[in-house]
């Protein structure tokens, strides 16, 4: 086959060791190095956000003051949200794995705009530094949602954090544009749309949302910054403004943002599940089109965050029924993933353990999502821990599982090293159990009537909070184990084979780790991805 000819399996110079100076990293235009830098930055953000989360959980061991005062608590949950949403969840898979993999998967040398790609790293770093500076100098206490009029009246300093997030938004937009153009123009010969790997489809859908929705976030953040510092009055009822307008604008971005987080995760799952079931994805077109379906319908469901905000009853009904459609698209994907396993040849490895976790979180989290979209039930659940638990299941749980699956699945591709499989499975089990132990009590807390963002809470809620905190420590240990064995793998790990999983994914056609320009000669594609029913051409070569 023509593809096999381009594979250089010899361990020669690869993108990691071709140049090793600091300057060569800081000024690189190599999409793989940029992806790797994003990966390191994102893991750092995950760590910071995770420490915030753990401190919040410890604060809740008892009602009233435990380890911090009310204003510190309020700042900390804001920072937890800001760091996790904008510094980890949104860039995690698209910017790190998307950058690394999309050009490899479509047979391109690099992304369409490599310099812009490098700029997106610096925008991210600049935004993160400004936001971090703001966190240590006054730190906002508004919640990551920045609801007006509180955000325009708060005595804390919200402006640096708003500016930081505004700049990070540009990093997202730049990445999105880059992927859209890359996927449209740089596909190798023979790679038609219906032959694209499902991960590329998911990144394509994500990029569309990023480009369309993020400007609205930028606009709304600037408006609050002006409102807070100059008293603009657009959201101020006393001057004819409307505080609910803010919520509409904010959720017009932030609801699609959920799909910025979860669509790439779905793409990862489609790839990994096919590889470990050694089988073509059942319903390739259904999975690909439902990504676009979610990207589209996701723009018309924002009002389900506002069922008790004072929007009209009709609006609530319209947004509720549209939200149900997202559930249908997600269900299509889930059915297709499960059906992929049918008559497969399933190998249970660490990435696949996370896929099991992903399926669990997307199914149960998704079902609680349909429950909160049931309007009358949401009236009780809105702004309680039920919603907190719901979105941590579906958005965080699912995305995190996919992120960890991707990290373990592509770790050999990225670094050419293997990690310890036993520890991989141990930490996967710890993380999945810990996640459940943290958030299942929170579903009950929400039913019980515990509102979110409560520093002090009525005593009847205490034992469930203690259970949740216990679970979060388990989660923390799981992450620490991963960090340790991956560092050990980087330093002392045995060298990875060229294609350790026997994957047919297009990214494995080049050497492991790939050379700087990915392919020795331009690849030609003659069939779709994941065609496991045919003998592996590369193996035959």
């Amino acid at each position: 086959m023509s593809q096999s000819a381009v594979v250089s399996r010899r361990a020669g110079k690869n993108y990691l060791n071709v140049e090793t100076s600091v300057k060569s990293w800081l000024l690189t235009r190599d999409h793989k190095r940029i992806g790797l830098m994003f990966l390191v930055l994102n893991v750092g953000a995950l760590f910071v956000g995770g420490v915030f989360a753990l401190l919040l959980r410890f604060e809740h061991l008892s009602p009233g003051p435990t380890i911090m005062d009310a204003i510190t608590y309020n700042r900390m949950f804001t920072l937890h949200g800001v760091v996790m949403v904008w510094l980890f969840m949104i860039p995690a898979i698209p910017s790190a794995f998307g950058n690394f993999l999309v050009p490899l998967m479509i047979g391109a040398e690099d992304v369409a705009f490599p310099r812009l790609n490098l700029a997106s790293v610096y925008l991210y770093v600049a935004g993160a530094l400004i936001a971090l500076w703001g966190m240590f100098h006054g730190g906002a206490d508004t919640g990551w949602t920045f609801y007006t009029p509180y955000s325009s009246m708060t005595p804390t300093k919200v402006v640096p954090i708003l500016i930081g997030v505004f700049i990070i938004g540009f990093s997202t937009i730049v990445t999105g544009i880059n992927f859209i153009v890359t996927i449209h123009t740089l596909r190798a010969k023979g790679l038609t749309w219906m032959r694209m790997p499902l991960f590329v489809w998911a990144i394509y859908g994500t990029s569309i949302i990023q480009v369309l929705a993020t400007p609205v976030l930028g606009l709304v953040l600037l408006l609050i910054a002006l409102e807070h510092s100059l008293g603009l009055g657009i959201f101020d009822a006393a001057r004819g403004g409307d505080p609910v307008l803010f919520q509409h604008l904010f959720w017009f971005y932030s609801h699609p943002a959920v799909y910025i987080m979860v669509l790439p995760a779905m793409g990862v799952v489609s790839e990994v599940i096919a590889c470990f079931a050694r089988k073509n994805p059942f319903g390739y077109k259904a999975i690909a089109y439902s990504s676009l379906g979610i990207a589209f319908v996701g723009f018309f469901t924002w009002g389900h965050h506002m069922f008790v905000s004072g929007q009209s009853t009709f609006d609530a009904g319209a947004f509720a029924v549209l939200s149900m459609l997202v559930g249908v698209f997600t269900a299509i994907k889930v059915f297709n993933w499960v059906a992929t396993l049918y008559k497969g040849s399933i190998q249970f490895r660490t990435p696949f353990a996370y896929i099991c976790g992903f399926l669990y979180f997307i199914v149960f989290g998704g079902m609680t999502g349909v429950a909160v979209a049931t309007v009358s039930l949401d009236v009780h659940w809105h702004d309680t821990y039920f919603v907190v638990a719901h979105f941590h299941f579906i958005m965080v749980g699912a995305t995190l599982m996919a992120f960890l699956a991707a990290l373990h699945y592509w770790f050999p591709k990225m670094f050419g090293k293997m990690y310890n499989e036993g520890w991989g499975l141990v930490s996967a089990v710890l993380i999945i159990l810990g996640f459940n132990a943290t958030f299942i009590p929170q579903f009950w807390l929400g039913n019980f009537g515990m509102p979110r963002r409560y520093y002090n809470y009525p005593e009847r809620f205490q034992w469930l909070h203690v259970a949740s905190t216990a679970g979060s420590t388990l989660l923390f240990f799981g992450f620490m184990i991963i960090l340790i064995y991956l560092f050990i793998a980087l330093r002392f790990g045995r060298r990875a084979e060229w294609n350790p999983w026997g994957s047919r994914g297009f990214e494995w056609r080049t050497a492991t780790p790939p050379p700087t320009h990915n392919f020795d000669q331009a690849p030609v594609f003659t069939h779709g991805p994941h065609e496991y029913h045919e003998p592996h051409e590369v193996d035959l070569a």
Partner: protein
Amino acid sequence: MNEFLRRLLFLPEQASSVAPGIDHLHYFVIITTMLMSAVVGWTALGFFIRFRRRSEIETTPRIEPGWKFETLAVGLPLIFFLAWFWMGFHAYIRLATPPPNSMEVYVMAKQWMWKFSYPGGPNAISTLHVPARRPVKLLMTSRDVIHSFFVPSFRIKQDVLPGRYTQTWFEAVEPGRYQILCAEFCGTDHSNMRGEVVAMRPEDFDTWLNEQRRGLTNRQDMAASAQEPVPPLTDMVEQGRRLAVAFACVKCHTIDGSPHIGPTWLDLYHRQERLANGDTVEVDEGYITESMMDPRAKVVAGFNPVMPTFQGRLDGPDTAAIVEYIKSLRSERINPTPSGGPAYEPIRGR
């Protein structure tokens, strides 16, 4: 069964007329979703075991879904989801529509307390007294940021916005005490912005209301659970005075008895006024409130009907504060031995 599921799901008591219906839908949705999730989960688990890799050179067949599978995958969830939507939306419309015979209470939220005003009657802080078995409609607004009125036992929640009224309603089925929580983050003391609904037997409520109206009980109920010390009456008067200036009431109504565009407020309370249509009316809280909201309904004889309506501009508590201010404007002539101490003297001087 209801009780078992309620406890299993940690739901609070069902203290309002709508709560059992909402909980039944809750049970239905949770049970069906959990069953469906379990079916998907067990199917996947079955596949893991049945189709585990037995040899390294195993190959798999290529399988594509047929139209039957695709229709089922779209149709089945869609039918369930739409059914839940329909049931939920029905109940939501009921939650959003107060019955026409509801008793009305004005609610004003501010950082970080709830204030309840009964039209033409008393105010209370943090404690909302209501009759059981009678629908109560809450007309809510906020003085500062967004708050959210949440009574878990009633399964109701409604955001409270500045510059705008939102409403919700409930009917407590049994006398009892039910916690009010603020559910929208509103600042440092958000988690302490709590209150209580005290549902009383209807006859007890009537007694309580009458006592409050006469000002006899001195608002003991506030003192019980208020987060802040109960503001003394003069503070409400002070607030009313400021509002009267802010809304330009005093441009037409004098407070020293001199004639002007509108009737003077001095000694207005309990005055017998002759109306343009020949009737007489005793000026009480109800008449003052009505005159603010619908000024042309009962115009005092000899005055032109030029007053604008303050409907929508003054909320319940503000209205009550202005009423209190008017009530406080007494002269020695009518009330030679004032019971209120020297409070009236400074008022005349202001």
